[in-house]
Structures are given as structure tokens and as C-alpha cells.
């Protein structure tokens, strides 16, 4: 459905995306995961026909994004990051305007359907300027699905929403994903895990990994980390040499006076954790808390970047079959 080959974009001398190659299938929800400035928005803007790439090609439903830009734009629904809407129009008038531009048949009926879908029927006559952040986002989604596009491109669809609205929008995307191919970007790992069939991890304009969320998690679960909060006059750093000697412990790091992070070997015995606790007590400290340090997106990046650095310039073929062809 979406195909990109060696997609590259320079802003002046700055390289925003660097030879991206990927493909998505029909009816798939693909997540584009990466920190701010990774190149997600740039890639999406190229795919929507907003701007041409500096090098490389991309196709949507077999139409080239530059050569057949209008055909691509007819087939894509787009929700830009922080969507900008005309505040001086009502929801209905805005959707009517966008629908007319896109030549939607039976427009009135379709607008009514879409409003129902995004749960905005009672705000149809409200001015967009008077809507809350979450409602604006839903107007944006309504606009994106109005013409029943084959491909839906959503740039940070849940950014700036409160938790309840976020759940709502995710639910909506999941529903929409049953009929459309969806590509969405996010910097929230759990969101990608929750919604996506497949995740592309992107950093500094390059794809670092491409996998299902489950496999990605498995790969990253290699090392387990435990976070300890301890009390004692000597400070947490005093425990470092003691805990390092325990079997199954790879590394101990004192975060501050009270907190330690302990990295366990992937094959550490289940008894390692009780042993840690006992060692803390035996050393004359008090143990206040012990929990699994969850892997944040940042950790995943650090790990992937470390892996990349370790594997040198050669492609890490097993992990990223399509991403690093040019590395």
C-alpha cells in the first residue's frame, strides 16, 4: 500500500531523513516510532504529497508521490501534527469545504456519518475556535477519513490530549484501522505497542529497527533492570561493590544517594531478586522499594544505537532486514 525506497530529504544542508526504505501492506496499522526530530513528520509530508523528497521514491497504492501527486492525494487521508483548522468556520462548514475539495459524493450524508463516527454530532454547528483540544483532534480525524481514503496518515494523533481523550482517539484509530491502511507516528512506546501491527523505529532520519511490537519487546527484554530505593548512612554508592558480586548481576549503578539501578543477566535465576534484597539488609541498609525498571523508549534507542555502533558500519541484517541497506 505504502512503499518507500531510499527516501531522502535535505533541508538546506541538514539531512532530515536518510535513505528510508519500507513497505506496508493493505489493512495494516504501522507505527512510526521515534523521538522529536527523528524525521517522522518529514517522511509523512512526503507520503502525503505535501513536499517532494530530495532523493528516492515513494508510492501510495502504486501511484508515485511526485509524478502522480494528485492521485496520491486523492487516496490519502492526513492528520498533521497539531492540526491547524479554520477557527472561524463551523465543524459542518469545514467538513463540507474539505469534502467539496475532495469531491466526496453524497457529501451531506457522509458528513453526518463521519460526525457520528467521531462523536461530534452535537457540535456540528459549533465554531471550531470554541472546541477543546480533543474535539479539534476529532475534527481533524473526521476530515482525514471523510473521503474514505485507502491510506490514512496520522502524525502524532494523540499528542496534547488528556488520558481519557487519548484512549478515545486510540479506540477510533483501531476502528478505522479495520478498513484502512494506517500509518501513524508517535513517540510513546506503549501507544505503538497498543495500536500497531508493526513498528518502525526511526532515529536521526534512519530506520533502526522494524518489527512487530511483540518481537521488539522480546528483543529488548534481553537485559532486565531492577530499581532499588535504600536507606543507610553510607549512601547507596556503598552498596555498589557488594551487589556487583552477586551471581546474575551484570552491572550496578548508583543513581543518587538513595537509588540504585541493577542490570540483571537475561538468564538470571528467579532467586536473584530475593538475593539482592537480602544483600542490602545484610550490609546494614534498609530496603524501601524494589521494582522493575521499565524499558522506556529512550532505553530502546540507547540500546539500538549501542547495537548499531557495536556492529560497525556493516548492516545488522538479522535485526533490520530493510532498514540499513545503505549503512
Amino acid at each position: 500500500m505504502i512503499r518507500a525506497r531510499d527516501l531522502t530529504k535535505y533541508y538546506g544542508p541538514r539531512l532530515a531523513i536518510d535513505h528510508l526504505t519500507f513497505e506496508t501492506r493493505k489493512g495494516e496499522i504501522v507505527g512510526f516510532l521515534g523521538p522529536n526530530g527523528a524525521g517522522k513528520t518529514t517522511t509523512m509530508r512526503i507520503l502525503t504529497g505535501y513536499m517532494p523528497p530530495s532523493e528516492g521514491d515513494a508510492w501510495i497504492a502504486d501511484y508515485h508521490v511526485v509524478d502522480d501527486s494528485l492521485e496520491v492525494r486523492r487516496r490519502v487521508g492526513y492528520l498533521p501534527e497539531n492540526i491547524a483548522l479554520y477557527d472561524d468556520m463551523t465543524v459542518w462548514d469545514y467538513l463540507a469545504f474539505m469534502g467539496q475539495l475532495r469531491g466526496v459524493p453524497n457529501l451531506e450524508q457522509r458528513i453526518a456519518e463521519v460526525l457520528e463516527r467521531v462523536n461530534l454530532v452535537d457540535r456540528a454547528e459549533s465554531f471550531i475556535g470554541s472546541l477543546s483540544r480533543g474535539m479539534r483532534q476529532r475534527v481533524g480525524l473526521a476530515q482525514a477519513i471523510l473521503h474514505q481514503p485507502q491510506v490514512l496518515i496520522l502524525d502524532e494523533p494523540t499528542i496534547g490530549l488528556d488520558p481519557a481523550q487519548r484512549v478515545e482517539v486510540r479506540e477510533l484509530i483501531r476502528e478505522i484501522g479495520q478498513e484502512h491502511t494506517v500509518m501513524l507516528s508517535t513517540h510513546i512506546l506503549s501507544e505503538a505497542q497498543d495500536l500497531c501491527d508493526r513498528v518502525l523505529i526511526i532515529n536521526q532520519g534512519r530506520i533502526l529497527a522494524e518489527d512487530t511490537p511483540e518481537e521488539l519487546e522480546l528483543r529488548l527484554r534481553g537485559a532486565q533492570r531492577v530499581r532499588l530505593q535504600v536507606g543507610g548512612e553510607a549512601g547507596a554508592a556503598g552498596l555498589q561493590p557488594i551487589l556487583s558480586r552477586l551471581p546474575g548481576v551484570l552491572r550496578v549503578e548508583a543513581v543518587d544517594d538513595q537509588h540504585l539501578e541493577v542490570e540483571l543477566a537475561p538468564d538470571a535465576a528467579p532467586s536473584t531478586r530475593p538475593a539482592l534484597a537480602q544483600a542490602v539488609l545484610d550490609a546494614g541498609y534498609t530496603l524501601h522499594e524494589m521494582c522493575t525498571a521499565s524499558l522506556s523508549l529512550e532505553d530502546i534507542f540507547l540500546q539500538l544505537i549501542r547495537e548499531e555502533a557495536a556492529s560497525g558500519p556493516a548492516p545488522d541484517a538479522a535485526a533490520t532486514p530493510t532498514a540499513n541497506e545503505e549503512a
Partner: protein
Amino acid sequence: MRAIWIIARREFRRYFTSPVGYLVLFLYLFILGLIVNNSLQQAYAFSLFQGAPPPNSDIIIGPMLTLLVFSIPALTMRLLAGEQAAGTLELLLTAPVRDWELIVGKWLGAFLFVLVLLALTLIYPLALHLLIEPGLDWGPVISGYLGLLLVSAALLALGVAISAMFRNQVAAFAVTLAVFLFLWMVSSLAGAGNPSEGVLRYLDFGNHFYNAFFRGVIDLQGIVYYLSVTAFGLLVGTVIIESRRWRG
């Protein structure tokens, strides 16, 4: 082509849902009214003491060009600069609309508004017609209004192009006005014997109006001039939007 009409209609309506449209309409008609009133009083005074001929449509059509030069930048400043500042341009540029259709649509919307504005000013010639004996000579009125329409088309196209260059509406307004004033005064730069005199006089949009349409002459050279400027402005606007895509 359908897209042009959709965009034009929306832009036209927007002038009536924002203060700018009403402000321009009100100020234009009000200031024109003041000027016409003043001219009438003068003409009345002269006619009492010197038996001068009654005033003609010049006192109305003369100042209308000047007022357009100051009004049109206010009408065009928002057209693309506003979309760029708000970020709404992104969705327009990802809709199945060609860049030139967007530019022409914006221009047409503004042109329709100026049509309404000019139609409303017709109350002044009608009033004058009733005031004087034996009534107004309608020839110069018709050619004058035709000239004003052509001038408006050209100035609006330049305004749209300049609006495409900016994100800031105030900057777009100031630059548009500066360009208009330059094109208005340009023939005064031409001293006698200056080799570029002919070119400078040709560029002056006031010349084509005051030397022909204003005097009741429908001048082909003037029509060609105004239509060329219109096409030039729309082309420049399109090129700017296209280049904006490349720069991202």
C-alpha cells in the same frame, strides 16, 4: 477547475464573516462619500459665481482608483499569509488541488468581493445623475468602471503573489502597498529624454487608467496591460507556492 470555484466561494464568504471585509466596505464607501460630497459643494459654489458646468462622473471615479490602491492590500494580505501562519496551508496542499488552482481560487474570491464593493459604489453615480441637469453622461461611467475592474484584477493578483511570500499578514500588507505605490509613481521617475521613459510609463498602472478608461476611452493596450499583470501575479504566486513545497 471545480476546486477554483470551491476555494473562491469560501474566500468570498470569509470576507463577510471577518471584520476585515466589513471594514474595507465601510471605509471605502464612507471616504468616497466624503470626497464626493466635498466636490459637489465646491462645484455648487463655483456654479453660483462663475456659471461653471455641472460636475460630471470624474469626481466619483477619479478617487476610486486611489481608494482601491489602499484597500486591496487589506483584502489580499490574509489570503495565503494567513494560511501559512495558521498552518492550515498544509491540508490545502495535501488536498487534490493543483497549486495554480489554489492561487486562482484565492484571487477569484477576492475579485468577487471587489465586484460587490464596486457595485455598491454605483449609488454615487446614480445619486449624481438625479442631482444634475440634464443627467449624467454614462459613457465615461461605463468605461471608468471597466477600467477599475481591470485595475482590481491586476492589483489583486499582485497582492495574492505577495501574500504567498509571507507568513506575516502585516508584512504582506506593507509590501503590497509599497509595490502598488511604486507602480503608481513609476512614471514620475521618467525624466524627459530618459531612454527608459517609455518602459516606465508603460509600467505605470495609473497612466493606463487616467489616460484612457477615465476619459471614456476603452483602450486595447490598457486591457492587454492589466490582463498581463494579472497573469503575471497569478504565475508568480503559483511559483512561490511550488517552491515552498520544495523548501518544506
